[in-house]
């Protein structure tokens, strides 16, 4: 019986260590699965500028037009998406 227990202890320890590694692996798998894809992040391919003032200066410099997104609210950051 004692010999049997000695055999079990390393097995239990190994399984615990392995379980922790598996947890890390499963979290990293979830991270990879849930992280937005390039397609979902396509709006970050656009030429975003922080303010209308900066956009107008850049437009004048580069001879390019602007799309201004106007949000009728006290709160909102369309670039981050928290709006």
């Amino acid at each position: 019986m004692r010999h049997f227990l000695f055999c079990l202890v390393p097995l239990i320890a190994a399984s615990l260590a392995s379980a922790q590694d598996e947890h890390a692996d499963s979290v990293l798998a979830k991270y990879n699965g849930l992280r937005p894809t390039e397609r979902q992040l396509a709006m970050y391919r656009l030429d975003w500028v922080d303010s209308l003032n900066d956009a107008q200066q850049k437009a004048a410099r580069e001879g390019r037009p602007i799309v201004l997104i106007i949000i009728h609210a006290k709160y909102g950051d369309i670039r981050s998406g928290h709006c």
Partner: protein
Amino acid sequence: MINPEVIKQLEPFIVTSWHGHRNDSEIPAPVRIVWREKFAPQQQGRGPQRNQQSNVDLAVLNSKGQVVHWFDGMRHGPTREPLAQYTARELQRAARFLKVDDWPPRNRPVELPELDRSRGIRVFVSLQDNRMTAYQAPVVEVVPLAEQDWKLLDYPVKNRTVDASNLKTWLSEVYPPGVMERTDPRTKMAYKIDKIEGKLGLAAAGSNKDQRYAVLSGSVRFTDEGGDDFSYGGKLEVVLSYELDSVKVKTLRGVFEGIYPRVDRKQNRTRRLPLQAVFESL
């Protein structure tokens, strides 16, 4: 903003945004022009009927900053045209005025928000609302962390507990986009996260020849400052890596999977929607 056709139409432009109210003291000239037309009496203005107006407008400005076209963010009238198609069509219309088609395609790479000088965490959040696909578009926030924020996550020589409230700096970004129903009726500002509760376990999680790992995990509950005990919660799981001879965090990657009770004001009921967040160190 994630529809490929809309992105394609926006690519030649410099894109920016502005937010505010009509009684603000400083309204930029292009916004004044758009709102003057939008809110003019219907027989004079060309905006949609008042009850069909959205709170978002898109204005196209030429390189001199003059408004050449604008349109309400929400299509109006008896149309079933998908919103993305409507947006792309209106942008195309403006592009024709500006001869944008003459410009070479830009093919810019995805450039996510970064931190300039400090280490921190990038947070992606999305609400899986199948009625409002726009809310599934990922929110991307970056949060700088101070030395004491990282210190809380030092390598666990012995397993220990971390109070989720101490991680508020970055966990407080876990709220959905478009949370207009959770705004202060007086200030019109969205309620911020007031309280984060939960006991998180931080445990060693193996090593290899290059580095060692730990996992931070547990349930987290968020309560906003609305004062009506509105809260939502879920499970946080984060993998931290460390150099073999250091207790300082090298990388952080993880997820939050929870349920957000979204109030549907039209149907006067609450829908429990999956809220997901992804975290990564910068």
